[in-house]
């Protein structure tokens, strides 16, 4: 009983601390926006519109649709959703390929000796330089963009997976062998869980790379998408519009990373260092 009440009190105080921390963060954030508003109004530079103007433009741009579309405008369906789809689609393919190949290579003793330097070289290639190659292969459009994203995002996942799979503790290897663990269970219940912390580090890095490459590929060769809208608003000197796309990309980057972190926290909750209810 006392334990329960103690726990409740602790939870409540934790929640209180969380809320006050949260409030403080937002206060600071609001203060920063206010300073930004003031500075831009004083400077009156066309390049730097005040945030109030950016928000107004963004609201008009994204939420002017009919009620049947939850007030989302055509822009959302024509540009934002396709962009997010290509980014996440390319990333998802890179995850499947990277984890699959990485597990196979990590299990093989000699596999990495054959392809290790090759992959290190591939990883070192700045992915945007391959855009022209993918452009002639897949044409202007989603194929080229997804290919660029996959090529950029796969290496951190693959190499981290190899690393993680290699790091399975020798006592766990012996334990699994002494139970005659069949291969699927060995991979699924021992090797991959052991590699997960490293895999997640790779996933986080590759997700931000995917977002970068989504923008780059749309800046260069695309007929729609956030990057395309960003560059065309710049070319038409519509600066509040351009800023609203920049802000959207910031929100996207923040949101995608937050979701992945939440998934990671859930999947890796067995790690003593990230205990939430110790």
């Amino acid at each position, binding site marked *: 009983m006392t334990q329960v009440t103690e726990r409740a009190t602790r939870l409540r105080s934790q929640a209180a601390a969380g809320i006050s921390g949260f409030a403080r*963060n937002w206060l*600071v954030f609001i203060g920063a926006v206010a300073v930004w508003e003031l500075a831009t109004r004083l400077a009156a530079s066309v*390049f730097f519109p005040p945030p109030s103007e950016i928000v107004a433009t963004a609201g008009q741009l994204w939420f002017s649709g009919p009620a049947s579309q939850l007030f989302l405008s055509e822009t959302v369906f024509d540009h934002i959703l396709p962009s997010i789809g290509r980014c996440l689609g390319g990333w998802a393919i890179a995850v499947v390929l990277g984890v699959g190949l990485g597990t196979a290579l990590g299990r093989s003793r000699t596999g990495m000796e*054959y*392809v290790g330097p090759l992959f290190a070289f591939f990883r070192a290639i*700045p992915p945007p*330089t391959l855009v022209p190659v993918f452009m002639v292969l897949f044409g202007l459009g989603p194929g080229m963009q997804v290919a660029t994203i996959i090529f950029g995002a796969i290496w951190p996942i693959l190499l981290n997976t190899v690393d993680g799979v290699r790091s399975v503790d020798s006592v766990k290897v012996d334990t699994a062998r002494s139970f005659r663990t069949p291969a699927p269970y060995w991979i699924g219940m021992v090797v991959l869980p052991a590699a997960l912390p490293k895999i997640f580090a790779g996933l986080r890095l590759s997700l931000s790379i995917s977002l970068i490459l989504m923008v780059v590929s749309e*800046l*260069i060769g695309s007929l729609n998408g956030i990057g395309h809208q960003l560059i065309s608003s710049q070319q038409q000197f519509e600066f509040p519009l351009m800023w609203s796309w920049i802000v959207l990309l910031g929100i996207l980057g923040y949101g995608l990373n937050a979701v992945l972190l939440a998934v990671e926290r859930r999947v890796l909750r067995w790690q003593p260092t990230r205990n939430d209810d110790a």
Partner: protein
Amino acid sequence: MRSLYRNLAGLIGFFLIWEGAVRVGLVPELFVPPPSEVLSTTAQLLGQEPFIRDVIATVLAWAIALGISIAIAVPAGLLLGSIAWLRTATRAIVEFLRPIPSVALIPLVLLVVGGGPEAKITLAVYAAVWPILFNTIYALAEIDPVLMDTARACGTSRARMLTSVALPHAAPFVFTGIRMSAAIALILVVSTEYVAGASSGLGNFILEASSGGTNMDQVLAGTVVAGVIGYLINDGLERVGRRMFRWNEAVGEAAK
């Protein structure tokens, strides 16, 4: 010795498959020239002054950007890492700025600072500051409390504690951040050159070569050179790190 042979076998095997795929017609030769052609073009280009100028422009911009990033991020990280209220005060701003993909700022930076080398350096700095900053803050937060208590019990002053306990501890983490930033800075420099059509640099070379659509051997040669530069940077920094921080097992493991 055997692993070296296998490394070479892997590389040669890749080139053979590529060559074979083009020769058999699996990939149209016009779009993806065979490696024999790409490598000979690379060799030719490396003998030409304008190409070398482009390479130098890229590497120079990369080096300057990385230098500026270190000069900004390490002191800032030390400050934020050791003063708690400063960290809380800036957290929201940092959390807001960091997720903006640096390439999203390309159009803005082009407007504000123009299309010269300043643009790519600015963007590369913006992107490269974060890993160093976060690794530095993380390193200071991760210092073993026992270590700090021991130092405090020995009567070490606050300033000495920073230089003799905190810095040596943080150094490997900071270095890991620098390694990550080095790779990101190169991507940003080349991307900006490519997207913005800067007047010089590897990215610009690739853009010009690709504009006709018939010089794919030059495009791929540029890509190969960019890859080699990236590989040398990464491998070089890894070696330096191993040599400098032999005592620390955290090297090579990215903090975040």
